[in-house]
C-alpha cells in the first residue's frame, strides 16, 4: 500500500490514472461506510462515494496537508452526503412525498453471491448502531472498525480527545446492554 504522500504526488503528476486507482482502492471501504451511515441506502452510498473520489481527485491540488488525507476525505463525504440529503428533501417536497417516509434502515444489495448469514449479521449490526447516539456511533466505528487515532477522529468530529474516549466507553457500555445475555447480537 502506497503512502498518502505518494498518492498525492502521483495524482499531481503524469501517473494520475495509476495513482487514482490506488487512492480509490485504499479508501473506498472507508468512504463507502461513512456514506452508507449517513445516507442509509446502498445505491446512494455508491453514488456519493463516486462523487467524493471524483471531487477529491480533481481538487487534490487544494489539499494543504493540514490534516490527513483520510480526514480530508471524511469532510468531503459529509459535505456530499449533506448535499444529497438536501436534494432528496427538495425532490420529495416537489413530488409531495414526505422525506420522513424514506427508509430508516440501510438498504442492501441482495446479490445471490451474498450469503444470508452476512446480510443478517449486517442488519443486526446496523440495528445496534442505530440505537447509539450519533456522536457515540461515529466515535465507536471510527475507533473500533476504522482504527483511527483519537487525533484524527478529533479533527473529523470536532470533539476533544477526552470527550472521544468518554464517548467510546459509553458506546461500548450501551452496546453491552443491547446484546443478548449469551453475548450474541
Amino acid at each position, binding site marked *: 500500500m502506497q503512502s498518502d504522500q505518494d498518492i498525492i504526488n502521483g495524482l499531481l503528476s503524469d501517473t494520475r490514472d495509476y495513482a487514482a486507482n490506488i487512492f480509490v482502492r485504499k479508501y*473506498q*471501504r472507508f468512504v463507502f461506510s461513512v456514506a452508507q451511515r449517513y445516507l442509509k441506502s446502498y445505491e446512494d452510498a*455508491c453514488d456519493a462515494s463516486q462523487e467524493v473520489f471524483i471531487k477529491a481527485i480533481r481538487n487534490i491540488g487544494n489539499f494543504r496537508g493540514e490534516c490527513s488525507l483520510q480526514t480530508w476525505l471524511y469532510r468531503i463525504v459529509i459535505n456530499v452526503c449533506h448535499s444529497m440529503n438536501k436534494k432528496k428533501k427538495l425532490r420529495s417536497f416537489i413530488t409531495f412525498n414526505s422525506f420522513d417516509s424514506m427508509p430508516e434502515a440501510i438498504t442492501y444489495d441482495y446479490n445471490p453471491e451474498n450469503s444470508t448469514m452476512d446480510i443478517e449479521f449486517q442488519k443486526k449490526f446496523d440495528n445496534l448502531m442505530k440505537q447509539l447516539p450519533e456522536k457515540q456511533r461515529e466515535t465507536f466505528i471510527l475507533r*473500533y472498525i476504522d482504527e483511527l487515532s483519537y487525533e484524527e477522529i478529533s479533527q473529523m468530529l470536532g470533539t476533544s480527545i477526552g470527550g472521544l*474516549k468518554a464517548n467510546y466507553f459509553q458506546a*461500548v457500555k450501551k*452496546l*453491552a446492554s443491547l446484546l443478548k445475555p449469551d453475548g450474541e447480537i
Partner: protein
Amino acid sequence: MERYNNMNMNQQHLLDSLPDYVDGKVDEQLKAAIDKAKQNDTALQSEINTIHSVFNALDKDHIISRQEYLSRNISVQVIQALEHKKTQLFSANQIVAFCTLSVIICSAILYSIYLPDTQNISTVASLALNDSNNMSNNNSSEVQDIVYGTHDIYQLSLFEETNTDQQELLDDIIVDEVFAIYERELTLENQSETPKALENEIQNVLLLEGKDDETL
C-alpha cells in the same frame, strides 16, 4: 508508572481507556497500570469482561470484510467516470456557457429585427405631436412641411410591409392628424380655402383607407 499506581489517579480516565486496553491499543505504561489495577478490583475486571464480550460479538474482521465486499465496485465506477469525463467533448460548464451565449445572441438578433418598426411608430407619433404644437402657433408653412414629412414616413412604412396591427396604428395616426390639420386650416381667418397640397394629402389617405370622394 507512579501516575497510574496512585490511588488518586483519575478513575474516569482509566475507565475510558478500557475499550482501547481490550482492543490492544494502549501504550505499555497504561497497559501495565490497568493490569495491576484489575487484580484488586473486581468491578474493573467485570467491566473488562463486558467489553470483551461486546468486541467478540461485533467481530471487526467480519464487519470490515462485509464493507469491503459492498464497496468493491467503487474503484471501477470512479475510473470509468474519470475516463468518461476525459472523452467528453464539452464539460457541463462549457455547455451551460454555450447555451447562455446562444440565448443572448438570439435575443439581440430578434431585438434588432423588431426594433426599427417600433421606432417608426414612435417617430410618426412624435411628429404628430409636433404638428399639433406647431398648429397651435398658427404657423402654416411649418405645418405643411411636417405633414409631408409624416406622409413620407407613412409611405415608407407601407413599402416596408409592416405587420397589420402596426399598419392600422399608423393609419389611425395619419388620418387623425390630417383631419386635425384640415379642421384647423378651415378655421384660419387669413385663408379662404384649403391649400391644394393638403387637400391632395387628405384624398390620398382616405383613398388608401378605402373611402370614396363622397365621404370626403
